[in-house]
């Protein structure tokens, strides 16, 4: 079995985010980056499948971004992925899931993967679309909010979340693209041996512009901190009129009564 796992690097929650002067990015100098949380569960799920199925299973870690994402892919190799493909985002496509999925589809179309695993959504943009779009583009069956997997030879049985606290078991054919929910497993730490061994594993580097020339459907126009404003309204009239108007505002305006 061959499994591709999408690994996205996102800003650490505790890093201070400051919008940069161009108003479209944040100041990266102040920020430390880490692996997206649900992607950690995705790589762990792939590793557990490999643990069950044996050494013939190959895991490819795949990421899109600037050069700094090499670190995140190296971590995946240290955890036990067999090889990695790093796509340099030379067209600033990262904010559009459709574009990202197209780039990954171009990478994976010749890789004959049986499974594509991705985190449910990213901690920075939270779109939650890439895994499903990628599955569609590659003609795979797709499932989201996955909380358990039981891969077979031609199909995979999986459990996923429905609305209102309900779950569902279903079986879908392979190849398939699954978006993994957090909490599905207990992600492992890379071992020191894994870290030292990752040095010898291969990271292939590709350029996004060479993989996909389409136009993104979404672009980031402006990045800003939500603005707080204060507005004071004076209520005029006699006390009875003012009281009636105040009750009206509380009822229909700010809806607290």
């Amino acid at each position: 079995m061959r499994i591709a796992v999408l690994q996205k690097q996102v800003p650490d929650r505790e890093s201070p985010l400051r919008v940069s002067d161009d108003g479209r990015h944040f100041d990266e100098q102040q920020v430390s980056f880490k692996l997206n949380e649900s992607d950690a569960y995705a790589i762990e799920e792939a590793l557990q499948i490999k643990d069950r199925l044996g050494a013939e299973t190959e895991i490819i870690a795949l990421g899109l971004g600037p050069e700094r994402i090499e670190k995140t892919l190296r971590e995946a190799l240290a955890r036990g992925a067999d090889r990695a493909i790093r796509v340099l985002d030379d067209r600033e496509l990262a904010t559009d899931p459709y574009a990202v999925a197209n780039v990954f589809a171009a990478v994976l179309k010749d890789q004959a993967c049986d499974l594509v695993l991705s985190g449910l959504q990213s901690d920075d943009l939270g779109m939650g679309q890439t895994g499903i779009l990628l599955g569609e583009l590659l003609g795979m069956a797709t499932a989201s909010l996955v909380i358990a997997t039981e891969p077979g030879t031609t199909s995979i049985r999986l459990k996923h979340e429905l609305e209102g606290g309900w779950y569902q078991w279903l079986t879908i054919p392979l190849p398939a693209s699954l978006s993994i929910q957090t909490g599905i497993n207990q992600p492992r730490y890379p071992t020191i041996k894994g870290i030292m061994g990752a040095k010898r594993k291969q990271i292939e580097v590709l350029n996004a512009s060479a993989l996909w020339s389409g136009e993104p459907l979404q672009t980031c126009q402006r990045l800003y901190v939500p603005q707080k404003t204060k507005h004071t309204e004076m209520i005029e009239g006699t006390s009875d009129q003012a009281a009636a108007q105040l009750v009206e505002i509380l009822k229909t305006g700010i809806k607290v009564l």
Partner: protein
Amino acid sequence: MNDTPAQLTTGGRFLVEPVGCENVLTRECFSEEHREIEGMVRDFASERVYPLRDEIEKFDKDLCVKLLREMAELGLLGIDIPEAYGGLELDKVTSAIVVESLARGYSASFTVIFSVQTGIGSLPIVWFGTPEQKEKYLPRLVSAEWISAYSLTEASSGSDALAAKTRADLSEDGKSYILNGEKMFTTNGGWADVYTIFAQVDGRHFSAFIVERDSAGLEVGPEEKKMGVKGSSTTPITLTDVRVPAENLLYEIGKGATIAFNALNLGRFKLAAADLGGSKTVLEEAVKYARDRRQFGQAIAAFDVIKGKIADMTVRIYTADSMIYRTIGLIQEATDRLDKDDPLYYIHMGEATEEYAIEASMAKVYGSETLGMVTDHGIQILGGYGFIEEFPMARPYRDTRIDRIWEGSNEINRQIITGYMIKKALLEELPIRTAIRDIDAFLESDVEQAFSGAQANEECAIETGKRLALHVFHAALNEFGQDLRHEQQLTEILADMFTYLYVADSTLSRVQCLQGDAPVDKMAATIARIHSAEVSIRLLNLALTGLHAIFHGKLPPDTADHLRRFQRRMLPETDIIQLKRALADYVYSRNGYPF
């Protein structure tokens, strides 16, 4: 930094060599693997240890052993252990990074348990054990199947460890040693399966033995009720006619001191690294609190006195970081020169470590006093809440107090620093005599010609400071000769002068390596400016006190004149307070220690 090869390879050479004349190891030159291991241990500590820190503190052996075994699975217990026995035998930098990063768990108790298991509890066997001893014990220790301890101290012999009274006598059949005596303050004592115990063979040859827990006659005493690190086990060990197989003698009869001091030498820089990690987490907690807590209508972080404290903590941590990793780099470099296949490899490693005994002792003193100072400031920033157990300062404040006492008290370590300097001066391992002869020429030289570049002022202050220390050292040796070692207050002054200079030299060397123009690099340069200015003032004060002691309260006119000439070059025109404000603001903007 210039690449001129260093002339000297002996410890203490920073005192006679100019700043930046050799490559120093700094955090910025960690390899990719070092950084990944650091990240992994930080994650482990904050996700596995931190949430359990209160449970650990309630004294829970099973929990601590479980965590140790989890660390063993990750390979973290085998960093100093050869591959043949289940370890990974990586460099000392890695071993320091691991213990530093473990501080993220905010549990000094657990760090102590880990440090004994991987340090004094197992290294004597790695270094001095026979192949059979290694085969038997190391795989069990590296997997944490067994817990280890190290038993040196006795009721009447602490710092004076070699005066131990515990005896070991060969049995009549010559097959075993019979141990009798009582050990005190054994860390991991109540939990250990195997101990390295020191005893006098025939009452006079100080030696070490590997003793298993279930040996008849070995009794573990009650747990000590301690001021801090309450989650760790500390007990007396009573030995009553304990029969230890003769093959469990470690190394040779009479070589106990070599074993004990080697373990301590290496333990010193690791303790320093643990304190460094602790200091960074405490600073982060203090910054968090200062930014949240509001008084007089603003966050207390905005008050100038709080900025001063945050800046002082940051300077202290940055300078400690610079000197600790430099020291580890020196020891690693000396170890790298050895032949690993030499049967005496570990003996030579001990010698290489001892070569930098001065620097290792400095790291221990400066590292432990850094955490002491940082937790003290932390309490003060938290105010009344700092005194309350639920808040994150009281425990580290208590926990760190022991660090100035164990692994050789800081008083003993200061004696070691000056003691080795005296030895190196008298044996001419360091060209101290030449350096002293050149002081006058240095003081007469043109400052602007001698120092250039962005840190010219700091360099001039530190280089002058070195001459000042040499001047006091020379005067002290002239007055007291070999007896200088008995003038302990004076030797402490000298030790502090040497340490401040080593720290300043290391900090400046590190800053000179930073080529970038990023805010973080500029702030590092700011730290070097603050530190060299403050250190200069402290050095002048120490020199004045020291010289008055040497000249019995009355400075000869030429000495007074000398002092004025030193002073002229050591007081850079620096607005320290303004620099500290800028540094604190930067630390706030990064939510904690940013380097």
